[in-house]
């Protein structure tokens, strides 16, 4: 608190930024526009309740044989 009180009594030094060409050339890069990034992949959104989404995802990954089999053996075809 004492530091805050002391700080409140300090004079504030103002710095005026020049807006001439020389100053502008110090920061010569400009943002021309902003765009949305392009999609790299199809990006299919799964809709529904959280449980419905979970079931759909399990179904998709199961179809791709990406889950462990019950015996813990990889589903992947050899080779």
């Amino acid at each position, binding site marked *: 608190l004492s530091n805050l009180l002391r700080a409140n009594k300090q004079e504030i030094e103002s710095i005026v930024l020049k807006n001439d060409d020389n100053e502008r050339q110090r920061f010569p890069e400009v943002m021309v526009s902003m765009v*949305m990034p392009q999609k790299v*992949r199809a990006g*299919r*959104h799964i809709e529904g309740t959280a449980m419905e989404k979970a079931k759909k995802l399990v*179904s998709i990954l199961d179809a791709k044989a990406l889950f462990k089999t*019950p015996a813990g053996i*990889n589903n992947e075809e050899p080779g």
Partner: protein
Amino acid sequence: MKSQAERYNTVVIAAHANGRLLPETFDLAAFALKLNDGCPRSIRILILGEAIDGPAVEIAEKTGIDVKGIVIAGLRNYSSEAYRQILARELEAKEVAYICAPHNSQGTDYAPALAASLNSACISGITGLLKNGEDLIFQKDVFGGKIKANMAVPVGQAVLIVQPGSFRLDSGRKVAPGRVTWSTARHTPKRLHVLGIRQSEADFADITAARVVVAAGNGIGEQENMALINELATLFSKSAVAGTRIVCDRGWLPLNRQVGVTGVSVSPALYIACGVSGATQHVMGMRGAGFVVAINTDSHAAIFNEADICIVEDIRIFIPLLLEAWQQRHNKNAVHQAPGNEESGG
């Protein structure tokens, strides 16, 4: 008066460590070639250090671009002070339009200071280059990759800090080797003494060999939620848990599990991004994945641009449900496969 041989439109600063070129150097060469319509004669590569003969010759052979090696006695390791001072001296009198540095731990260290020394423009994190007639637009990710900012340099010189992996040199192209010339420079450390650089003992074998990678990002919220990520990974064989830089920096995962520019690149059959925003630095490390599932609460997260399947959910709610859904399906399949149930249908 400058000789014709001294005139280059673009200078590339090579990145090397432990006597070897870093792959970012070739990405920079690809960027510089694109910048100069494929003309290597408009480009020069500068390489600084003590024992740089091998890397200098290698890059001249692989890119076809002229290389200037600046031999600095005693500079065994990268030093920001040395790079900034020597490059500023080397480049201040030259009419170079573009100076290209890598957006890695070295480039982001010295390049902005070099731009300040040269009174140049500075654009960091460049991921794309667009040409509109004579105008060049440098593209960079902002807002965590949700938006791309198109930047231009209307006048003067620019230091361009390029995101590794954004530009690739065509490895099949056959080129005549560039010339390699040499000069020497002296550097006496003043404020900064580099004592040594020790390589991490990280072993990335686990995640590079995995068939399924489950990755945790900042969106998982707390370290305790890593248990959910680990549990999800157990559903898959040959699986591994990985993370974004922030997750590894926080110590929620060891550094050898970090995927991205400063970690490792992975190419699993399945990549599940949990609470990963999709920042370029991370995405560059997982683009080789066969199938990508992204789970994030933010429907505008950049990771959804990189995913095959997008799920807008909180992983703290969704992963337990996913585990439950898997268990239900597993139980159903087990019933169907049990002896005596062959005719149970379904």
